[in-house]
């Protein structure tokens, strides 16, 4: 069998053969394996949710959608939930997400302790609607969503915010995964480039290995000083199952899928990403390229059933 990336030498050539670079991801995977027509479904989170809703993929409940600025006042006056997340439908890299954790008199309080007046809130929505955070600066929509209550298991290793789980799939097979933990530096967001911690997850067991924060390899969470490795992700089998199911509904060849684990509702799918970042390799301390080339070498014609895929995943 063709085994690209075989060999454990930490030589320069094995380094280059193992690491997936931006250029290669774009040319060989996102441009080749992903059909352009599917991008709008992935890029707009509201559309993703609508597409996946009939397929019983658990997702956080959408409270309301805002398309026009005049709706903002209405939302401010009628929104009955005290806790929710405000998201731009077409945002990327976690930009423009705001977490509201409660009321304080006439104002709303964010997860970072800021107090938001009605004026602040409307200004914020207006920026989103006029495309400040959207891909390509196009007009955007805003939606309010159920605020996930993170599983207590993650409490020792996260600073505010909600940890999430990223699974990257190629040809319907999960090829790499990581747990992203918010830090003080990331201001409660779970994005690696904003300073969140990334920890690799072993695909078969769902157990975290060591982590990375910025460019340095770490074993303890920088704020809570708790070990990151050895956490077994709850509902791991379910998460992998949902991921493969989503891959079959939205037929992208190469994409990332984000989950959160809610203390009451279990695993919830948050969003898809057709151009998943490459930092997952650093969090796992493994290159992605050899794994993708291995999947290529299997020459899959029609996607095998879930059990066969799990078995293939195990060989990575």
């Amino acid at each position, binding site marked *: 069998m063709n085994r690209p*990336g075989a060999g454990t030498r930490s030589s320069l050539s094995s380094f280059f053969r193992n690491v997936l670079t931006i250029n290669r991801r774009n*040319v*060989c995977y996102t441009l080749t394996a992903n059909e352009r027509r599917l991008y709008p479904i992935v890029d707009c989170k509201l559309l993703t949710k609508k597409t996946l809703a009939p397929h019983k993929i658990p997702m956080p409940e959408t409270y309301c959608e805002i398309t026009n600025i005049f709706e903002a006042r209405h939302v401010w006056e009628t929104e009955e939930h005290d806790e929710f997340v405000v998201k731009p439908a077409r945002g990327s890299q976690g930009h423009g997400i705001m977490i509201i954790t409660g009321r304080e008199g006439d104002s709303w309080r964010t997860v970072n302790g800021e107090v938001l007046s009605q004026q602040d809130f409307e200004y914020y929505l*207006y920026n989103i609607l006029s*495309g400040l955070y959207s891909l390509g600066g196009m007009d955007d929509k805003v939606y309010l969503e159920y605020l996930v209550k993170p599983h207590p298991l993650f409490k020792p290793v996260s600073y505010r915010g909600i940890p999430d789980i990223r699974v990257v799939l190629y040809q319907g097979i999960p090829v790499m995964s990581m747990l992203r933990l918010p830090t003080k530096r990331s201001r409660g967001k779970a994005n690696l480039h904003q300073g969140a911690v990334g920890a690799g997850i072993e695909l078969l067991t769902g157990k975290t290995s060591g982590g990375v924060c910025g*460019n340095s390899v770490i074993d303890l969470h920088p704020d809570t000083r708790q070990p990151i490795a050895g956490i077994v992700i709850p509902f791991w089998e379910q998460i992998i199952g949902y991921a493969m199911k989503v891959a079959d509904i939205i037929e992208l060849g190469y994409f990332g899928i984000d989950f959160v684990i809610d203390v009451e509702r279990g695993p919830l799918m948050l969003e898809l990403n057709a151009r998943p970042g490459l930092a997952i*390799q650093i969090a796992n301390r493994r290159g992605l390229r050899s794994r993708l080339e*291995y999947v290529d070498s299997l020459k899959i014609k029609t996607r095998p059933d879930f059990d066969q895929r799990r078995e293939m995943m195990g060989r990575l």
Partner: protein
Amino acid sequence: MSHHNRIRSTNITVYLLATILFLLTAGLIFARFYWGGNTVQMEDGLKLWRVTTVIDLKGNGDRARVRFTLPSNTNRQKIYNEIAHNSDMVFYTRDRESTGNRIGFWNSEFLEGPRTIKYFFSVQPKALKYPLPPTMRLPSNPLNYYPEELHKWLKPSRKIQSNNSEVRRILAKVRGFNRDLLTVNRKLFEFVRDEVAYRTEIGSKDTLATIEELSADCGGQARLFVALSRAAGIPSRLVGGIILKDEIKKETHVWAENYLNGQWIPFDVVNGYYAEVPAHYLELYRADYSLIAYSGMERLSWFFAIRPERIPPIDQAWSLYVLPLHFQSLVQTMLLIPIGILVVSFMRIVIGVKTFGTFTPVLIALGLRQVTLWPGLLMLLGIVLFGWLFRCVLDRLKMLIIPRLSIVITLVIMFIIGMMMLGFHLGQLNFMYVSLFPIIIITWIIERFSISQIEDGFFSAVKDLFGTVFVSVAAYYVLEIPFLRSLLFSFPETLLAVIAAQLILGRYTWMRVLELFRFGALYFRDQPPVGGEA
């Protein structure tokens, strides 16, 4: 088809296409060399010349202006491959109706420091002997006899004092009782040729000084001949030009033309050419005109570098050299834009430098070419810092995005005008060039910088700003290579090679140089084999 094969076949198509484009470029360039000058034959005994006029000047911060006569096509000379390097001065040409002269002007509202203007052309002149027309009597009242437009060639001018009594005395002596046009013309020619000694001198003499000393260079001698001819009632004028020889020189040559029975016929008293022009004479202007004039600068010097043309002139219909001179620099700048974008592509895809926007660095680089590098960068960073500070203040006012952007643009414009005013009052006129930066692009940089600062922190925003500046400077240095400009202008088909290069960059899958740092940690990790036990 499997994924791997699909990538391979796409790669093969792309590389094939790129190869075809490279070959096409080479072929087109070769074709220009091989068939380029087909319509200009090297006629027997005729030479093609390449003349480079180099004008060195030094401004002292004033409004400066240079005027230089440019050659025109005539029945005995043809001009090819004209091109001007204007050193960022404003260049235009004007045709003078009364003389048929073509004048080039280089202007600058503010000229500081040394500049070099270069003006190139190729010329194929030929020798021409004029058959003398049938003779006639000299008209007794030439102003009545000749049409209005010839009157200026009959009347005295500043250095050609044809109504002076001394001139009339010599005319009477030389002419005697002859009233025959050709005879009188011949006698005047022989008088100046034989009686006035040739002496090189600095500055040309007028007619009276020539008569007084009976020695002069070509200018004085030609003026005396023209003055005598006019006094005799023959329309007469000076012709200025260059004697073409394989050398570098400053000297020009002056001869005369007389209007004999319906046509202008050349006479060179100094070198004894009667009704003929030799092949190595290049005509530049008519009338008693100075070749070059200038104002508003500390000094100016010029010279001509003349050499036989080895490559035949490119005079096909599809050569850019056929464009009018003053549009050529516009086309030159346009041709540079794809090269600038190629630099940006390379920096982003191969090196991995992040920039604010894809085309921002190219527009900044074009701006820097006008403003020059260091002052330009300082101004740019100054404007961005200023704009960003105000953008921070505006952020507190919770404004809608479009009015907010509009205010930033307005503030940038105000800042730029303010800097110009400040520069004027401080006597720092190079501040004026700040106005040449693309204002909308700078506003966009400010917006992107601010968002990046809010979202990812100040350090990240500064990093991307410096990435943008770095790529702009790289593009600036590439665009400043003079060879590149000449190459693109002579062979615009080079742009096909640029497309080919972009095609190859479009399928570049290797690691970006800066990714080495990002993924460096993975290098020290053992990578277990993939696809192990089944």
